[in-house]
């Protein structure tokens, strides 16, 4: 290779082409994501407040991190976020699996059902939040109205105000919005499933549950992990939902890491501290994504589909 390549300037060499093609993408991401993140990393070591621009040069070392790590509210929000993600992702997987299996059984009108199933995926999270805020409204919400009209309850249930109910309501909205990505990918997995192993297992005397457990489910796992990976790319969309439904309230009972960042950064204008929290949230997202991406790679290898 060397002998011929040396005659061409480096940017014309075949081996350089991919980098030329990737240059715009990399440049954009460096400018819009990487550099700002480096800047915010710097800011997280300063006492920067929006209202006092000169505080940008006020270097405080690890004080912001110390402060957030000793802040009880932060840890509560952090724990609540992890719990929220765990519950939501698991529910989404379970419901998605159920829906995929259900729709796989239907032969008539399946295409239409699949399309309808995709709709929530395309909803703006802010709309999902609004929609459920409207449904769960204690005064004029459909849910309370329906309960009252049916005589199941006479008072107004404070869905978005009560400590436990509010979090539950937000999880409902989140699950409603994101289950379809699981359902759709798992359904695609069911379609791609080869028939031979299923039939072989039946001939070998497995009952339907065993077939599902030992043949279908392992085959579907890579598809579930794609869904998980895609989902973990934008888990923080939940911020939109919470912001419109409860705004993190009442009294911080639905505060997630992301709403806390917004409050500290913009409302309290403590940018340094907010950036420190933002870093924690970024690491959290990366951890989730990386975890599922690894599982995806492993599952793919297991299936022998990788090349």
């Amino acid at each position, binding site marked *: *290779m*060397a*002998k*011929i*390549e040396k*005659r061409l300037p480096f940017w014309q060499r*075949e081996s350089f082409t991919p980098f030329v093609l990737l240059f715009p993408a990399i440049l954009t991401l460096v400018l819009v994501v990487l550099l700002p993140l480096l800047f915010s990393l710097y800011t997280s070591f300063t006492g920067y407040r929006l209202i006092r621009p000169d505080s940008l040069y006020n270097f405080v070392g690890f004080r912001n991190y110390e402060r957030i790590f000793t802040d009880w509210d932060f840890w509560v929000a952090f724990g609540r976020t992890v719990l929220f993600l765990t519950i939501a992702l698991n529910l989404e997987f379970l419901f998605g699996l159920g829906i995929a299996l259900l729709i796989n059984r239907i032969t008539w009108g399946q295409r239409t059902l699949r399309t309808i199933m995709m709709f929530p995926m395309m909803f703006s999270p802010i709309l999902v939040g609004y929609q459920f805020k409207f449904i769960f409204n204690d005064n004029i919400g459909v849910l309370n109205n329906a309960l009252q009209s049916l005589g199941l309850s006479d008072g107004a249930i404070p869905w978005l105000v009560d400590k436990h109910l509010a979090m539950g309501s937000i999880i409902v909205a989140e699950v409603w919005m994101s289950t379809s990505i699981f359902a759709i990918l798992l359904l695609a997995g069911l379609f791609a499933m080869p028939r031979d192993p299923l039939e072989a297992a039946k001939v070998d005397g497995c009952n339907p549950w065993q077939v599902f457990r030992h043949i279908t489910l392992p085959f579907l796992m890579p598809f579930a992990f794609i869904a998980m990976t895609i989902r973990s790319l934008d888990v923080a969309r939940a911020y939109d939902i919470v912001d419109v439904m409860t705004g993190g309230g009442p009294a911080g009972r639905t505060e997630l890491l992301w709403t806390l960042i917004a409050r500290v950064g913009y409302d309290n204008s403590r940018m340094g501290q907010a950036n420190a929290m933002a870093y924690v949230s970024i690491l959290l997202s990366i951890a989730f994504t990386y975890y599922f991406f690894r599982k995806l790679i492993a599952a793919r290898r297991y299936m022998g589909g990788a090349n």
Partner: protein
Amino acid sequence: MAEIKLQNVVKKYGQLEVVHGIGLDIAHNEFVVLVGPSGCGKSTTLRMIAGLEEISDGTISIGPQVVNELPPRKRNISMVFQNYALYPHMSVRENLGFGLKIAKQPEAVVADRVREAAEILGLEELLERTPAELSGGQRQRVAMGRAIVRHPEAFLFDEPLSNLDAKLRVQMRTEIKKLHQRVKTTVVYVTHDQVEAMTLADRIVVMKDGWIEQVGTPMEVFNHPLNTFVASFIGSPPMNLIDAQITGDKIRLSDGTHLPVPERLENHVREGQEVVFGLRPDDLTPQGHGIAENGHRASVELTVELAELLGTETILYTRINGSEVLGKMFDPRDVSPGERMTFNISLDKVHLFDAQTQKSVRLG
């Protein structure tokens, strides 16, 4: 007017060298077949000629021109791919005319040449269809049509028949042969099927692990393999290879059988030399069932373990000192397993290879 010359051509993928400095002269209008087992570098070599792979070292020239740094489009060659690579979004007519259209030929010329190619290949009825509406054989024909419309200097084929079923393969093989006789051009054809190689080639190039093992006409390669690899690769069923030693004027096979050293090889062997004795199944025939039973012969007594009926002939499986040896029975009769038969060996057809170098003793 294109002869193709490869000089010391090397291909490396990073550190991995997959073609090790091969040289090859292909004459104008010659039909050359590259043959060898999977992964030996046939496709890589062909793709370097086409300009689809960079050459790591050496030179390739087409006609008078060194083409090392020319992109494929400037080499004036055509290529037929294993999976045809027809453009799925174009009709057969558009597929055929695409190259000419790119070259900005006037429409009348394009139409003419497409008609000509369609006629040669019997595609007239199919011109308006898309590739998806064609059978495998028809697709194959369109791919060849696309190659001939441009009147290139050379055709390159990369296993063009391997996606077809056995019967169609034989049919298309003859069509390719006829096509070559009709549109005289240089052809480089890659296959791993030695029957295809034998039937099509003016010259065969046998490759292995990125090296050229032998170049020659089909008869040369078949009758005078230069080493045990070529001997066992060309010909079906493959040549029997048996360990042996030269003792006096005899060849002592590993089971103790003594055979005379053929006259023509006498000067090529030394006393005590370890050799590999090669004999094609066609030349190991039960008494009374050979083709031409004259010339020098020896005979051995062998037990038939299995008989495989092919109709006009039967393959007989026997064993010499534990290793399997195949014979052929022409004008066959029923043979039962376990039967002991006397086999004739045509001494004129015996091959001897040096055990150490695996090369024909005639070479050294």
